[in-house]
């Protein structure tokens, strides 16, 4: 065997912070190789991907627009991942949140009430939580794997939205396009920086970071989440109820994903249409890992992944690179992250010699 892994006595603190950085560097190097293979100048491509999008104020605000849903969703997902509850259906919960909250805006499309938007926020979160409650119920009551059920419900959720905007909710004066009527002004999130698209949701995302941090480090349930993930048997002996953990993490992550979905339709999009997310619900999984399942880390992770979306769009326009490059980068980054994670738990040794002078 060429590579040998020796367990560390304690997790390396340095590696906890270094391994995401290392993963990003490796991803950039892999990116240069891929760009070269595609016959593009790798340095120019990287510049287009990662520097150009944010070299002006508007670009930076767009970064916040894209990072907002990623951060909000990833904070919820990370809570679940810590407790080994694998909600991978955030994309569906996001869609359901948009349907519930956006439906309210369409129902009161001539309203000017200041209560409309707050009510939509509540409905959005409820919609996402409802869609996540189904896998939670199926897991706790019928033992059904939440990975598969939450993902299947994503396909169903997206089809429900497609049905609504093709059918009953199609705009009466939209020239038969599959989209709803535009939301009334009272249903739109206020823009917080004039002349850009950055909206109130970005501030709420920051609140979610702080809230998630407090929840994780200061609350009893946060403590339980950490124990359940690290030592499930110990948790059972102490009497932490696994079922409650499943319900809590799924409802929380579903609610946050629903909120993120509502932010998209009440913010940058402004109406319901068949596609409301470029896969934020899936990318948020990577954001959660990139941020080491910690809210503050997730904030940075969200900004980095948002950059790949912006860079991908720009590379498509300026260099004719297919948009799929973004997804490719995201997948490679997650590979490197998982590989580098090994460094926190193990020391890598090369060669096959057995460790010397360490008798048990």
């Amino acid at each position, binding site marked *: 065997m060429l590579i040998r892994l020796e367990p560390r006595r304690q997790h390396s603190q340095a590696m906890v912070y270094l391994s995401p950085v290392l993963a990003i560097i490796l991803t950039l190097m892999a990116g240069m190789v891929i760009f070269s293979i595609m016959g593009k100048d790798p340095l120019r491509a990287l510049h287009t991907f990662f520097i150009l999008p944010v070299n002006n104020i508007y670009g930076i605000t767009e970064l916040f627009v894209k990072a907002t849903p990623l951060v909000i969703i990833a904070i919820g997902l990370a809570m679940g991942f810590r407790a080994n509850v694998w909600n991978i259906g955030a994309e569906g919960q996001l869609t359901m949140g948009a349907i519930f909250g956006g439906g309210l805006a369409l129902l009161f499309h001539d309203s000017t009430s200041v209560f409309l938007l707050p009510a939509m926020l509540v409905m959005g979160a409820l919609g996402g939580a409802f869609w996540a409650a189904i896998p939670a119920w199926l897991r706790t009551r019928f*033992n059904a794997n939440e990975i*598969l059920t939450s993902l*299947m419900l994503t396909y169903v959720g997206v*089809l*429900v939205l497609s049905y609504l905007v093709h059918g009953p909710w199609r705009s009466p004066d939209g020239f038969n396009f599959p989209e709803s009527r535009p939301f009334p002004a009272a249903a739109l999130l206020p823009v917080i920086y004039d002349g850009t698209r950055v909206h109130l949701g970005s501030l709420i995302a920051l609140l979610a970071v702080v809230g998630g941090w407090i929840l994780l480090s200061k609350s009893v349930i946060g403590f339980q989440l950490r124990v359940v993930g690290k030592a499930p048997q110990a948790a059972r002996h102490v009497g932490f109820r696994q079922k409650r953990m499943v319900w809590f993490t799924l409802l929380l992550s579903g609610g946050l994903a629903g909120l993120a979905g509502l932010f998209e339709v009440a913010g940058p999009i402004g109406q319901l249409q068949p596609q409301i997310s470029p896969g934020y619900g899936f990318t948020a999984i990577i954001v959660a890992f990139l941020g080491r399942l910690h809210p503050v880390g997730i904030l940075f992770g969200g900004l980095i992944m948002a950059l790949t979306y912006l860079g991908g769009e720009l590379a498509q326009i300026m260099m004719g690179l297919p948009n*799929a490059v973004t*997804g490719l980068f995201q997948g490679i980054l*997650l590979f490197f992250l998982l590989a580098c994670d*090994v460094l926190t738990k193990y020391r890598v040794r090369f060669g096959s010699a057995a460790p010397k002078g360490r008798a048990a």
Partner: protein
Amino acid sequence: MEWFVPIILTVITASTPLLLAATGELVAEKSGVLNLGVEGMMLVGAIAGFAATASSGSAILGILAAVVAGVLMSLIFAFLTLTLMANQVATGLALTIFGVGFSALIGSGFVGFPIQPLPGLSIPFVSGIPVIGPIVFGQDFLVYLSIAGVIGVSWFLTRTRAGLILKAVGDSHSSAHAIGYSVIRIRYMATLFGGAMAGLGGAYLSLAYTPMWAENMTAGRGWIALALVVFATWRPGRLLLGAYMFGCISVLQLHAQSAGVHIPSQFMSMLPYLATVIVLVIISSDRAKIRLNAPACIGQAFRPAQ
């Protein structure tokens, strides 16, 4: 009876990709490896098969390319989870995310590219027999391979020494290691077999089911294949039943529309996904049965003590 034939034929083509991918995943899971990247491996298999067929004109080369692509994808997974002991769930998700992006990137030059669909078997006279001829003797090579795969895997797992060792590794890796079997090596092979079969399943989609390439053309079939393994309670024979049941459901949506059933198409498209959820619930609620059949070490990393 004649009207019946096209329906059966579409059921077979809809079931085959699921059956191929699920058979491979079953073997991997039996060895204790839970690879959630089936969707990604199928997609990469689909584009590799399509690209090779489109550029060479040879379907055989296409099928080979799909197998190689599936194996390479599963090799990434195996290296991360078996050698580096990364979390299997997270790595599987990464494999799918990567596969979606990678296949779309390779495939961007092949959208709308026409190819000849996989040719069906044609035996003089026999394939011409009404009803039985086209159904039993007129399928393409991969359909027969998918059935043979189930039978072969069933035989392998129950009747061969290697199959018993593989199951032992999945049920108790420490005991298998203590007896002297190389847990990691066996898991590598099982995972690569899973990759090869997922690649074939993907190739079936792009070469036979709809002979074309489209982004994300698997549409969740990799995940349905994972659910099928649970449905089958890790027994190959029931995989056949499950895959064909799902084939029927997806064909239902096609034929209901042409039969003039006025249900919005979106609700018909939901059927396979909803059926997956229902099937999972029914099977999983019998905890005793799951415990009895599920590989005990599934999803757990193994590190040989030194």
